[in-house]
């Protein structure tokens, strides 16, 4: 395991950075928000990302991917985080491609992955039912019928739910609401009968949806992974997603911090640059230190994902370290981002507001700092 980027990863990072800054600066997200865009992301931009091969980054070559590893996807996510790119990269590539890769049958992989890599299908993971992430608290039911399953229940905070072609639905096939046992995953078409989807406009201007399933009928082969025993696989997919989100948050917090530093070196009050005030210097120095720890936590987690010797428990620990730490520090940096810019920071015209809005959503998504500290403690037996 190494904590520095390989030459290839560095090249990829540089080109991703150039791409995002040129084609999708924060002004793109602003435009999507202001125009109340139907899809909530820029279709042309997504096409270009597909052409760059970003959707196949962590997909094996046998299924049309490029096998560049999670380290590669991680640096791309970091750069998209810098400019707050809104795209299906997280829902479809980071989460769904991983879920299919980890859980699907070979036939399902053959059918879905090449289309995913080619940008022909968008996916969403319908998981959460509570207002805070609790992945095993599932009451959506999938009842066995003579020809398959019938799914009923409700989901919330489904990322890209209103644009997805396919849904991965986490449902209960046995057991009680809080049991890990008895959870199964199903793959269904978003336009299947009985599915109703309501777009929710979130504070970060990205796409989410609430969903209702009423007696949605699916066939046997809609099952993704093992019956009743879907949780361990789901958790593994979630860990990949948590690490990817942490990488994205790393990019975002660095963008805020760079903006802070630039302002400290440019804004004058009392006849001097405000960056000469020690009250601000020390806070900047502390943020810098925390961001350095964040970088290390993300790098360690990403290289853990690409290390075949790592056990699932070790990955889980790395994921919780990264998500807990990044959630905490992005909270800090996004708050200081407003404070250190003074009144300017409060204006909609200035970009930093977009980052604090993204921060709160990203912090909560797939478990906030408290969730992951609790999980870390449990993993470590205390």
């Amino acid at each position, binding site marked *: 395991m190494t904590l520095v980027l390989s030459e290839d990863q560095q090249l990829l990072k540089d080109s991703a950075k150039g791409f995002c800054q040129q084609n999708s600066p924060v002004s793109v997200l602003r435009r999507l928000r202001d125009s109340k865009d139907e899809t909530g992301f820029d279709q042309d931009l997504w096409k270009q990302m597909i052409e760059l091969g970003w959707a196949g980054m962590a997909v094996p070559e046998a299924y049309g991917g490029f096998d560049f590893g999670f380290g590669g996807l991680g640096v791309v996510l970091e750069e998209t985080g810098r400019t707050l790119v809104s795209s299906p990269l997280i829902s479809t590539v980071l989460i769904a491609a991983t879920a299919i890769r980890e859980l699907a049958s070979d036939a399902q992989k053959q059918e879905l992955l090449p289309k995913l890599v080619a940008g022909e299908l968008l996916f969403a993971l319908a998981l959460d039912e509570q207002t805070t992430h609790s992945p095993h608290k599932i009451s959506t039911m999938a009842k066995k019928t003579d020809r398959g399953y019938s799914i009923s229940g409700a989901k919330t905070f489904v990322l890209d739910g209103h644009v997805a072609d396919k849904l991965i639905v986490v449902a209960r096939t046995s057991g009680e609401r809080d049991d890990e046992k008895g959870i199964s995953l199903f793959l269904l078409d978003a336009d299947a009968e009985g599915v109703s989807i309501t777009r929710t406009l979130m504070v970060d201007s990205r796409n989410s949806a609430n969903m209702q399933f009423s007696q949605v009928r699916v066939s046997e082969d809609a099952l993704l992974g093992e019956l009743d025993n879907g949780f361990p696989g789901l958790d593994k997919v979630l860990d990949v997603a948590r690490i990817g989100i942490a990488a994205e948050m790393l990019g975002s917090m660095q963008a805020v911090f760079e903006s802070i530093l630039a302002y400290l070196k440019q804004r004058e009050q009392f006849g001097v640059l405000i960056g000469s005030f020690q009250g601000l210097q020390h806070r900047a*120095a502390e943020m*810098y230190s925390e961001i350095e720890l964040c970088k290390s936590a993300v790098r*360690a987690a990403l290289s853990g994902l690409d290390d075949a010797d790592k056990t699932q428990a070790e990955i889980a620990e790395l994921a919780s370290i990264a998500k*807990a730490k990044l959630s905490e520090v992005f909270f800090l940096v996004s708050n200081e981002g407003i404070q250190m810019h003074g009144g300017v920071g409060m204006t909609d015209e200035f970009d930093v507001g977009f980052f604090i809005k993204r921060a709160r959503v990203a912090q909560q998504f797939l478990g906030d700092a408290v969730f992951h*500290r*609790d999980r870390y*403690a449990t993993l470590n037996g*205390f």
Partner: protein
Amino acid sequence: MQSLKDFQEDTRAWLEENCPQSMRTAMVQEEIVWGGRNAEFANPDSKLWLQRMAEKGWTCPTWPTEYGGGGLDKEQAIILSEELARINARSALSSFGISMLGPVLLEYGNQQQKMEHIPKIVRGEIRWCQGYSEPSSGSDLASLGTKAELQGDYYLINGSKVWTSYADKADWIFCLVRTDNEVPKHSGISFILFDMASEGISTKPIQLISGSSPFCETFFDDVKVPASNLVGRLNEGWTIAKRLLQHERTMISGFGLAAGQSDRGGTTSTVASLEGAAKHYRGDSAKLSDPVLRDQIARFKIDSEAFAFTSRRSVEESKQGQGPNATSSMLKNYGCELNKRRYELMLQAIGSQGLGWEGEGFSDEELQLTREWLRSKANSIEGGTSEVQLNVIAKRVLGLPDILSLAKK
């Protein structure tokens, strides 16, 4: 050249054969080996372990072999430290010579100085102390006033130092002295070495809040020091002084690493890990019953892990032979704050048994813990205070305007 794989195998085999069993246990305070003319070996195995390691130069693995060092490159040194950690081997020798003076002497010393001092540091024959701080010059170190005047072929030194750790036990001192009063404060400082047995030196131990007396007031009264003991050029000692501080800070940041490490377990002691201690003293079995403490411990441990990754990344990122840079201030500050946090959490975890001072009713380990907690408070003062580290980061790493450039010189 030998492949890294072979190096690893050879190293493992050598350690297997040469590291005494009792050196593969957690270090205890009284058995730390500092070396020096009057070196003490509370455990005879320590002496053997030091001799064997010194013979290979592995007390200073990356220093050149011509001065007795191990001559290892960065990758090999990482392997050696991993192999040492694997068998839980104790450090064979701890000294300011290794962590502070040696590296700058290799960088700034002349051939004769290196030949004279480096091998003795590697073998632990001479114990060094650091003469930087003075009563009126702490954070503002460059304002120091201890005077050195050239008189023919020697310098005459007058003045006093304070907080000089182990001055009463050290054989030699590396010392900052003022050699020019007429120029801005940073430009009149020189870096000089001398024997603590020289005439005119006296030391007076100062007691710490933890009860021990590791540091002293140090007085110089017409001390004669050969002019050839000046390191680098006259009046250019501040550059060397700052460089040494980077090494010192990197060393101190290791306290934070150690805090995380000891917390990953390895010993059977009840206070080896925070969660182990909390469970033991509170009678919890599987899960800690106090959710607030549990959350704080998890937070501490997550920060320790991220910090350990960061220290490792800084080693991986540094170029061969380049040594530490201004980020050492970040590591120092973070590591020290972590170590302090760990002790506070430990006290919180074990309650009144962690507050004993001496005598009946407490185990030795508990009493030591109280003292260590108090000692940890110095971490954010020694080697430059936390506030000073934050100043360095702001100025040197982040490039913010220097608040002190307006202060009176």
